[in-house]
């Protein structure tokens, strides 16, 4: 497990070489540069789970134009950096969201809209809606409101970009570190019927990542 935000876009040897030749500074600069590029280009897969889905089109189209910040919608989780969950999550949805999230490539972020993913919102006593999404998946940015307007969503983007740029610890790292915790919670609520174990290596991170 590589440490730090920068990951392995340059391999360890190169990093060592930088340090050996007294260029640790260069490495830092490059890391900063990569973080800046990452913050400037965020591919979003918008998972319209609830009523918040309606807020996303205006966010990305002419009126509010998220693209000017480099935030672009993509279709598949493989290409995405950010998944937006825009409302309450039923158990059935949660299963799909987990799968989608795990198919995204690191670094990856989650942003939620509305209060339902935070505390269940008006579905607090439903027999099939979860109340605390952060028990199951690590959330990077929660935009509250019912529903948040596009301005708020864009504010969320800005916040996320700042966090990326600053190199703060992101949700996906927490997910990797507390993997057991998240999986246990998922198993509890999904009745043990977790998706097949062929998923990806994050099921067996400790044992070398072999499926």
């Amino acid at each position, binding site marked *: 497990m590589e440490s730090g935000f920068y990951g392995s*876009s340059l391999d360890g040897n190169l990093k060592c070489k930088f340090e050996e030749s007294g260029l640790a500074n260069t490495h830092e600069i490059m890391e900063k540069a*990569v973080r800046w590029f990452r913050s400037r280009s965020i591919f979003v897969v918008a998972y319209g789970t609830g009523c918040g889905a309606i807020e996303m089109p205006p966010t990305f189209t002419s009126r509010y134009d998220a*693209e000017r910040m480099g935030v672009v919608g993509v279709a598949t989780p493989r290409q995405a950096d950010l998944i937006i969950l825009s409302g309450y999550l039923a158990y059935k949805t949660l299963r799909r969201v987990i799968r989608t999230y795990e198919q995204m490539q*690191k670094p990856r972020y989650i942003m939620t809209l509305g209060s339902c993913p935070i505390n269940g919102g008006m579905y607090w006593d439903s027999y099939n809606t979860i109340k605390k999404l952060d028990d199951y998946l690590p959330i990077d940015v929660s935009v509250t409101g019912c529903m948040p307007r596009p301005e708020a969503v864009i504010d969320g983007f800005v916040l996320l970009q700042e966090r990326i740029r600053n190199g703060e610890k992101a949700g996906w790292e927490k997910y990797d570190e507390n993997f057991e915790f998240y999986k246990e919670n998922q198993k509890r609520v999904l009745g043990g019927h977790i998706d097949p174990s062929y998923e990806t290596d994050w099921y067996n991170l400790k044992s070398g990542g072999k499926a």
Partner: protein
Amino acid sequence: MIFQIILLIMLAYVVGFIYFGLYRNITARIQGRYGPTVYQSFYDSIKLFSKNNTVSYGWMFYLGPVIMATGAVLTLVLVPVFSDSDFLRSVTSQGNLFVLLYLMVLGPLGNALAVGTGGNPFGVMGVVRGLTRLIGLELPFYIAVVGLIIAANSSDIVHIIDVQKTAGLNIINHPLLFIGAMISMVGFFGASPFDIPGAPQEVYSGPRTEFSGKFLALLMSQGSLFAFAKLVLIVDLFLGGADSLVMLVLKTFTIFVAIIFIGIVYGRYKVEQAVDFLMKLPTLIAVLGLARIVWFG
């Protein structure tokens, strides 16, 4: 020669990305948006290259984007960039227009193998749409190219450029062929109304569904190289080539903007509509141009 090739690739990389940035920017402005910066595609590419993870479904999946990139680079190298200079002339003389026509398809076919290996049905659906579209898309372009070859009596691009010096530009001499080729070009650039293969609303993201990280970055980079090569090819064929970098940028940019403006105002065709359309009007236009060359030239 090697230095020149590297220079060319870098040039194409930069120019291609800036063009794509402009493409997004102009599109945004037409839609009444502010739009991303011109360098946005470059950011995207760097970001994708610096992704921590990349999935792969095996060696064929790994090689697909590489084959695609190879095809693009080879195409780029074989297209004469400057008309009156020896720049890479020894390389470009090894191929001809037919080689280019087929090289342009080699890359996508290689990538299609990777898509198939990925096993995502949406990806394959995209590939099949792309190949089906190709049936119609290549027709006007082929006719235009054949017309020019017959007019110049040579499939050597340098010769076609040289002919234009004395006989006048092909865009003026053979406007019908130019129109046909341009309609095809809109499709080759993946612009509307022919952006069928990657249609995100219908087939996920088409052929690119499973590609992530560095593979996606490689595909994007080769896309910009390839776009540049195609633009240069059109400039060579119809605008008499370019003798300096300024002219090259100017001419390619003109063509590029024309393609953007065609593409931006249309919705997407269905694949059968696209082929049907391409088989009718553009083909007819191009055939008329061709008939003029063959029978009255």
